């Protein structure tokens, strides 16, 4: 279903004008913020993986 703020305004109790520009900006940035969330959630794993990669490379010549 398309996202329709008129529908939103009738189902919730918004009395403020959210402002078209402020509303659209958030929708445009949805994927950026969504991606940020994922990156942060998996940051430790990613960091661990990268570290692992580098340490393996470093270890190789010693082998």
């Amino acid at each position: 279903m398309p996202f329709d703020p008129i529908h939103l305004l009738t189902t919730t109790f918004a009395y403020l004008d959210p402002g078209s520009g402020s509303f659209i900006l958030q929708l445009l940035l949805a994927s950026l913020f969504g991606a940020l969330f994922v990156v942060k959630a998996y940051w430790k794993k990613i960091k661990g993986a990268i570290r692992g990669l580098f340490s393996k490379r470093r270890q190789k010549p010693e082998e």
Partner: protein
Amino acid sequence: MSEMGDAPVPSGASFRDPSGFLFTAQGRLYRQVNPVYRQHYEHLFDSGLYHELVECGLLLPHREVGRERSPESSAQAYRILEPELLDFVSYPFEWCFSQYKDAALATLEIQKRALQHGLWLKDGSAYNIQFHRGRPLLIDSLSFEVYPEGSPWIAYRQFCQHFLAPLCLMAYRDVRLGQLMRVFLDGMPLDLASRLLPFRTYLVLPLFIHIHLHAASQKRYAGTPVHTNRKLGRTALLELINSLEAAVRRLGWSPRDSSWADYYTDIHYGPSALEHKRRLVNEFLDYAQPRSVWDLGANTGMFSRLASQRGIYTVAFDLDPAAVEANYRQCVRAGEANLLPLVLDLTNPSPAIGWENRERQAFLERGQADAVMALALIHHLSISNNLPLDYLASFFQKIGAWLIVEFIPREDPQVQRLLASRNDIFSNYTVENFEASFSRQFEILRSEQLHGSPRRMFLMRRRQRPA
């Protein structure tokens, strides 16, 4: 009280939100919840959010009272609430930088906790935050609504205008720009903030997004209807809130070059005079036994604390944002609940603003104190601001029943400093004239010269006004 005085009077500030409104009846403040808000109100309680926020001091508690108090017919009211009373209502343009920042962070913390309970804030107004027992909290229990999954944050624009933009301007340009909140009732317009901020704020990602890109988006999409398949998922919304929080947290301001904040470290009078002054203030407070004190020209609050540390609710006003900042930081460090430092220019106190000048009250409409302290203040008002002594006496009797006041005569170096760059047209500025002017409004109960100083301390009680 007359019958007219008993009739409920709706608050002039409470007409925007159809969820309910504030009114006063028989001298008490109530909030009506309209039937249309029922679902959200119930969810606030059923989800446990109300109790959680009250417990951690982020929401002003209220109690439910009988619906017959409604100014309308009781059928039109779903609930009538009586919120806990605030000691003093302050406005964002009276907060120092750190107070403003703490208010913004409190709003975002509330928003995050609300989302965990399936609700969110439907407004992000700085006027919904007040300082109560030393900490910022939300005073409007009708600010919540059930979170509509997938929607962008309705109050995003308002939060940026009320909190982020003024804080950025204070941190990056000049702390005095917080005063613009007096002019712009619904917060700083983002296009203006974007123009006033220095270029380096474009390089800070959250500020680039929430101020500059936001302002551009407002301009680009003004009046455009929003029909799209896109949604803002819960995780993206949480990231948006985190990003606003990161933006606010990294903003900082520290007093650097204030001629005032180091007032107490400068030597204006010897230690025996200072000690004598403290002793007299203590004695005067013992005698007057006030329940509330307003310390005008409080600087960093050294004398305000003589009152607040006795458990007396004290508001410490000063003109200088740096002095207020230092005072507030000390309050936070020591967890002081009875002291509220605020920025106020007495020669141009906060006016009433908003629709019909009734939405936000003027300084003089926001109550009175039992006792007013005016230490090392009279010479500033009288000489720097050319105010006649009669005007001062008349002003002080409007705001307090007791007056603890210091008179610094002409020969004191502080007065000489004020006179250094101007014609001395102040032949009336004498202790005799001061006593004569103030005696018309007050009874002078004590008058004592400080040890080793020409300064004089007074305790005065307002004369009974004719009935």
